[in-house]
């Protein structure tokens, strides 16, 4: 009797604990999602409704004006072109350089691989800092207002390199020996054999690089003044802080009967910026999960 009572109490407590867990996780997930919802939904609201009611979970009226206004200007097109080309070019070069470099660091035959590893590791613990870096890019290399200033500094990320090193180390060395006996040199081995069998890690690290290039505003903040070269992230910043949105977005030549949709332009630009990421998210999520797991647990 008494024992049953204890069991019942216990299972009641168990069940409410489990419900509590479901609620906590659900609420947290919702909180993560709500800002996205608000931004996306309200980018389709009218400016007057935002001014009148603030941002709402479900706005009453629907309008495409913010998008029409934003897309009519020149800035969004040029910012998109900058961000897309920097991301594409940067990611391709970065993954090539990083995988080649990491392969050598992981290669048993390379006598000086530990020196190279230390040289790479050292840059992670003792940085040059802002001033030296700024002078190098702006003055020594003369890359002010050049797209290369947005690409070159991120070509080799030591952290990503070490993720690849830890992957290459897991490949059996016999592959190498067999290919060497067949007369392949190290270049052939790397490009013909290693790269094809390393597709998962290459995809993962490429996505990390792509995300970094897409989201970065630090380099543009430092080195880009010409608004024709502003990437999307800087465009968002300009729209938040700029008083003269009309001339910046570039809709000034066209005449509009309605007022400038200040909030609308901000929200629409944000949606256009995060759009590709959100659309790709279901497909790329697992790669990031894998990358984070390797990076943190294996080193």
């Amino acid at each position: 009797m008494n024992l049953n009572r204890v069991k019942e109490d216990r299972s009641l407590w168990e069940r409410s604990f489990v419900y509590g867990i479901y609620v906590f996780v659900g609420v947290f997930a919702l909180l993560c999602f709500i800002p996205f919802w608000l931004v996306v939904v309200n980018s389709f609201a009218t400016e007057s409704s935002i001014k009148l009611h603030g941002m709402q979970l479900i706005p009453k009226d629907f309008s495409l004006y913010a998008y029409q206004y934003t897309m009519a200007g020149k800035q969004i097109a040029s910012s998109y072109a900058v961000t897309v080309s920097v991301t594409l070019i940067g990611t391709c070069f970065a993954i090539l350089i990083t995988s080649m470099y990491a392969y050598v660091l992981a290669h048993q035959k390379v006598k000086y691989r530990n020196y190279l590893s230390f040289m790479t590791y050292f840059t992670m613990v003792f940085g040059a800092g802002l001033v030296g870096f700024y002078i190098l890019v702006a003055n020594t290399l003369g890359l002010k207002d050049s797209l290369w200033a947005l690409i070159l500094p991120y070509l080799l990320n030591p952290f990503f390199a070490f993720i690849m090193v830890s992957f290459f180390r897991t490949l059996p060395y016999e592959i190498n020996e067999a290919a060497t006996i067949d007369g392949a040199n190290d270049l052939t081995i790397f490009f013909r054999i290693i790269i094809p069998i390393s597709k998962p890690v290459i995809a993962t690290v490429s996505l990390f690089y792509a995300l970094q290039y897409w989201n970065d505003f630090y380099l543009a903040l430092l080195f880009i003044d010409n608004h024709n070269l502003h990437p999307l992230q800087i465009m968002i910043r300009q729209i938040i802080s700029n008083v003269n949105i009309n001339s910046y977005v570039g809709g000034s030549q066209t005449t509009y009967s309605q007022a400038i949709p200040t909030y609308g332009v901000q929200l629409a630009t944000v949606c256009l910026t995060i759009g590709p990421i959100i659309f790709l998210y279901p497909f790329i999520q697992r790669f990031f999960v894998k990358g984070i797991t390797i990076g943190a647990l294996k080193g």
Partner: protein
Amino acid sequence: MSFFREIRQNKYLYALALPGLIFLIVFAYLPLTGHLIAFKKYRLADGLWGSQFVGLENFKFFFMSSDWYKVTLNTIFLNGLFLVFGLGIALVLALFLNEIRHLLYKKLAQSFIFIPYFISWLVVSMMTFAFLNTTDGVVNRTLETYGLNPVNWYLKPVVWPGILTLIYVWKFAGYYSIIFLAAITGISGEYYESARIDGATRLQQIYHITLPLIRNVVVVLGLLGVGRIFYGDFGMIYGIIGDNSALYSTTDVIDTYTYRALRVLSDFSKSSAVVLYQSVMGLITIVIFNQIAKKIDKDSSLF
């Protein structure tokens, strides 16, 4: 002699490493000479080597002012908050996600929690503004509906460590919980089975099995975080706070301070002195705490 033989023997391999090596030399090692500017009165026309040597003048200037402990304290305090709450809440989330047996629910929740990791700080800044702006922000509108006075958030420095911590947790809870979940998944199911046979509740299983077995991962992540405590997240702070000087007293970190000294005041020497101070302090803390982390767990030590 043996050096050249090694290079010749593996010439293709060293050729593969060459672009990466050149990158490191140009972008990581060459700029180290910039630290010299900390000891000089830098003028663009004179260049790095031609500028006048002034010894510790620039450091004196920085350490005599109240700036140095203000930005140092802000950096350490904010990073401390991020670390404690970021890891803490991610740990709770991972433990809870692991208890969820409904797979679709678990997957959906995880996907939502991970999304914020993918957006830039400027988008986050825009979202923050949408919530907190004085006239039309979601928060103030809600306060007004309940008859409360709206708050001028962007003029109230006291609340920002809290707001920034909230934003940090929002953005990185998914990231860290992935790491913790991976560690939890590595635990053998047999422990839980035998615990269940002995009548342990779920909470007891979490407390007596899961937590002790992933303790190392938590401690190591914590130590690595402490090692980087002198490095503020420039993108985050500058993206959200920007040039709003009303909030500097609680949000100005070393990284934003040096950025302003360089880009707004064009004071290369002062900026450089602060950067060198940060790099040296950073080096010391990272090396110390990485060593401790290495002692605790050999596998997850490198960074």
